[in-house]
């Protein structure tokens, strides 16, 4: 009897509409569009990048996890490597005014400190962060040429360089590789880790 209920439940599931409110940017769904200024004030529109693979990296230059990832961890030079292959890499800072790592000035400076060639987009009111359900820095999204989210989650399985057992796995590297080879991305969803995104109240 309960299994019948399960069958009915599964049917319901297949027909259930997307729950935009709970999981705003979902793997397999279109990436929410946005236009945000970079640290030079130049607007960047996601939809205008259709046809290219896009990586979004939630960023806060003063978060210890971001510092580790860009200092000696997996993000060091990773963006530059993939940008050369035609991937568009966008860091997004959703920190509110007055919060850690916030603002144009700090992030323009951070681009130099971390030797970033890609833009850091400023999302002071946190609208884009909330639309993506970004909760940590870093937190990664890979968007394919059609504008579909194909990976969402952590950069890797090693917070601050410590692997909780098993092998080191850079999930974003794996996702970009699989995408390039037309293979299935596995895993395509992981739990991100890091500092909380410093949203305004």
């Amino acid at each position, binding site marked *: 009897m*309960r*299994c019948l*209920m*399960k069958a*009915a*439940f*599964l049917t*319901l*599931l297949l027909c*259930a509409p997307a*729950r935009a409110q*709970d999981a705003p940017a979902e793997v397999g769904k279109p990436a929410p569009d946005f236009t945000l200024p970079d640290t030079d004030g130049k607007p960047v529109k996601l939809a205008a990048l259709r046809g290219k693979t896009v990586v979004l990296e939630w960023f806060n230059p*003063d*978060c*210890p996890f971001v*510092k*580790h990832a860009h200092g000696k961890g997996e993000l060091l030079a990773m963006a530059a490597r993939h940008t050369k292959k035609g991937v568009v890499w966008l860091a997004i800072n*959703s920190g*509110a005014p007055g*919060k*850690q790592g916030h603002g144009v000035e700090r992030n323009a400076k951070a681009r130099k400190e971390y030797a970033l060639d890609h833009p850091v987009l400023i999302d002071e009111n*946190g609208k884009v*962060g*909330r639309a993506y*359900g*970004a*909760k*940590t820095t870093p937190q990664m999204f890979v968007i394919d040429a059609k504008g579909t989210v194909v990976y969402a989650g952590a950069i890797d399985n090693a*917070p*601050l360089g*410590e692997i909780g057992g098993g092998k080191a796995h850079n999930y974003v590297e794996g996702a970009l590789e699989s995408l390039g080879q037309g293979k299935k991305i596995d895993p395509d969803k992981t*739990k991100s*880790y*890091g*500092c*909380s*995104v*410093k*949203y*305004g*109240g």
Partner: protein
Amino acid sequence: MPWPRTLAALLLVSCHGSEVEPTASATPAPREIVRLSLLAERSQVEPGGEVELAARFEIAPGWHIYWTNPGDSGLPTKATFAAPPGFALGDVVYPGPASFRSPGGVVTYGYTGEAVLFARAQAPAAPAGDSSSFSVSASWLACRENCVRGKATASVSLPPAGAADQRAHAAILDRQRARVPRPWAELGVKPSWAYDAGEMRLDLDVPGASAIELFPLDGTGSVLRAQSVEQKEGRAVLHVRFAPVDPGHAPLRGALRVVRGAKIVYYSLDFPWPC
């Protein structure tokens, strides 16, 4: 005067291999945020006896550290215990956490004020040496609004049996042990499941409760959508909504915090998803 202080802070940082945020003037050194000590519940080691070890974290006001599942952000507090050869060490036991909410729907789980991670050491029939030395190596992330990584080690040495064996640190350990989740069966509540609109809904109706909260462990946290408490006459009902789970998903695991008047008891949840 400012110089020695800065120097001391730098020394502490390098000793503990910790990371401090650049606003060092506003952020205390890791050692000032969390202090680690290792407590042993017995005054000596009895042959074949058990010694409860407790890694105690004293956390500065306004700061918190994290549970084994930190939630949306943060990092698990970890403790690795070590005992002399011949001792058997049990699993690390975490007390039930509190939850913290920050803007943007970020929910995390952890501890303020004080936390203790327990591990039991079983002595061999004939412990060797003049004393038995135990140690713990711990790492944590302490956050207020911003976060500071901390690492430390602590140790304690116990004499062999000889004098009368006594309990030690009873007040601290009793207080903290009262937070360790009890077996689920002790709650005596039957979970009630329903399927609705592409979700699984769990209701827990707890007589005598004024507040209930579910703290999910990792595999359960990833499918937990929302929880709410309904107050009823002399009872509280917890409504939890889960995203659908695939067959073979890890069982529902977590800790349930039940408040009855001034008394708070945690229960351990570990049961299969329905059907």
